[in-house]
């Protein structure tokens, strides 16, 4: 009798859990579904009261309208180039510095690492006006270089990869050293490959962060042809303020590449971002 009631309460608990998770999932997914459905409707159809759920005819014209009003090819290219360069710089320089901070002895190490920590604690907006002035002075506003500029080095990446190198026993480096590797070879041939999962996490983090960033690309590249997907999309905010199907089509186009990557590599994405602990 007693076990029966226990089983019963467990079953109720299970049902409540599933119901809550499914309800939560519906709330999470609904905006995306609504975005997709709206992007295929005509403007008149989207404004019907009560709302029409499925479009009578799946219109592709909203997508061509979105592409006509924003240079999507350029925006994709700019975003991809910005991400690629930021990832390369973050991985290269942060691996070098992370390794040195974790494994090498040199004078000034603590003070220099203090600079890394300081940068991590301050919000990026405190740097943005002088950074913008530098870009303007260098005459590189409205370029890929300008988009990459604040991402040339990564304090967070340095901190994160230092943790990864701290996790590798010193004996590994010593063995390589005794085998005749010099410091650089020890680093590139032996130590760096051992951090691959952390490097993957940093890559995901850097890419998602750069892709979402709004203020810097907005400030530094005002030419529509040099905008990223995020900043370009932001310019649509005021225009088309009533033509939601076109806005939804544009947003969908801007979101699609990252979402597809995410669905293919969800394990790397989730673990990567969870591992980095975000910023």
């Amino acid at each position, binding site marked *: 009798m007693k076990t029966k009631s226990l089983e019963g309460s467990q079953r109720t608990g*299970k049902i409540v*859990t599933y119901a*809550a*998770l499914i309800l939560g*999932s519906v709330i*999470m997914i609904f*905006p995306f579904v*609504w975005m997709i459905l709206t992007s295929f409707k005509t403007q008149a159809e989207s*404004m019907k009261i009560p*709302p029409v759920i499925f479009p009578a005819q799946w219109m592709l014209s909203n997508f061509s309208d979105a592409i006509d009003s924003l240079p999507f090819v350029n925006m994709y290219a700019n975003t991809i180039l910005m991400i690629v360069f930021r990832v390369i710089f973050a991985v290269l*320089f*942060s691996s*070098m*510095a992370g390794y*040195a901070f974790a494994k*090498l*002895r*040199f004078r000034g190490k603590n003070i220099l690492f203090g600079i*890394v920590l*300081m*940068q991590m604690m301050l*919000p990026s*907006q405190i*740097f*943005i*006006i002088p950074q913008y002035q*530098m870009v*303007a002075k260098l005459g590189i506003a409205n370029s890929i270089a300008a988009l990459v500029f*604040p991402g*040339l*080095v990564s*304090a967070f990446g*340095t901190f994160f990869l230092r943790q990864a190198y701290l996790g590798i026993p010193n004996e590994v480096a010593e063995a390589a050293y005794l085998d005749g590797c010099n410091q*650089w070879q020890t*680093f590139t041939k032996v130590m760096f490959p051992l951090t691959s999962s952390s490097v993957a996490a940093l890559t995901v983090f850097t890419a998602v962060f750069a892709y*979402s960033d*709004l*203020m810097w690309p907005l400030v530094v590249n005002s030419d529509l042809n040099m905008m990223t*997907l*995020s900043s370009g*999309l*932001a310019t649509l*905010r*005021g225009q088309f303020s009533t033509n*939601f199907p076109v*806005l*939804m089509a*544009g947003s*969908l186009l*801007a979101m699609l590449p*990252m*979402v597809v990557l*995410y*669905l293919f590599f*969800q394990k790397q994405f*989730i673990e990567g*971002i969870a591992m980095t*602990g*975000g*910023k």
Partner: protein
Amino acid sequence: MHTKLSRAGRIEQHWGWFMVAPTIIGLLVLNVWPFIQTVYASFCEHLGFGHYKFIGLDNYVNMFQNAEFWKATGNTLLFCVLTVPVGIFLSLLVAVMLNAKVKFKGGFRTIFFLPMVCAPAAVTMVWRWIFNADYGVLNQIFGSNVKWITDPNVALISCAVVAIWSSIGYDAVLLLSGLQNISRSYYEAASIDGASKITQFFKITLPMVSPTLFVTMIMRLMASLKVYDLIYMMVEETNPALTNVQSLIYLFYRESFVAGSRGSGSAIAVWTVLLIGIATLFQFWGQKKWVNYEV
């Protein structure tokens, strides 16, 4: 370091300097120097083309007398109050449910995490549509007539809803990793002693996950204090609700890059940094009361 280094030690030292050089030089140029410049600029008037004139405390005096500035500070704090407790609570709930033996765990996790990989610019666009007062689906579902993003009394709440929706999956994943570290044996022992699930949650789960909970809360609070993109996308500059919604960083953006007053913009940035610092100190001070580091 007074003793002379061996040859190998010297070589190691040179490699150390060489390998940190790109990062350190980059940080000095891109962050340390700009930080000093921003603090200095907050005591200056911007004359255009990057030229500044020292004016002492005027920017701060003007700032503290400016109602819009205090409103932005209040909006930012209110935004934190609206998003952090509810967001963390819901994230913990999701994490606890995903930590139980449920099917499709991976699928649920994927769905809850999805907003994290979508640019806020794109995500807010669909929320603007959902919240649209005339044709938006929300008013139609509830049969209401609320101006979700143009009513000064409502718009900040709408922004908070989007913020919570965006961050639940991410915070839940962080909390889930904390929950997974709790040994099953604690729960088994508690079950034998006849403790209910609810008692188990408060006596085992909550204390054991409190360090992760603390880190997640700090991060969420810091992110909320510097909120910008979401509010910028939801509430454009012509929106009548602007002053009731704009955050400090939004005001900073408008002041520095729209109005071009980089001196007073810098003062807002410095103020925001101070606010974040104070909030973080409070959290670290308060953690002694509830965070459990013993196990």
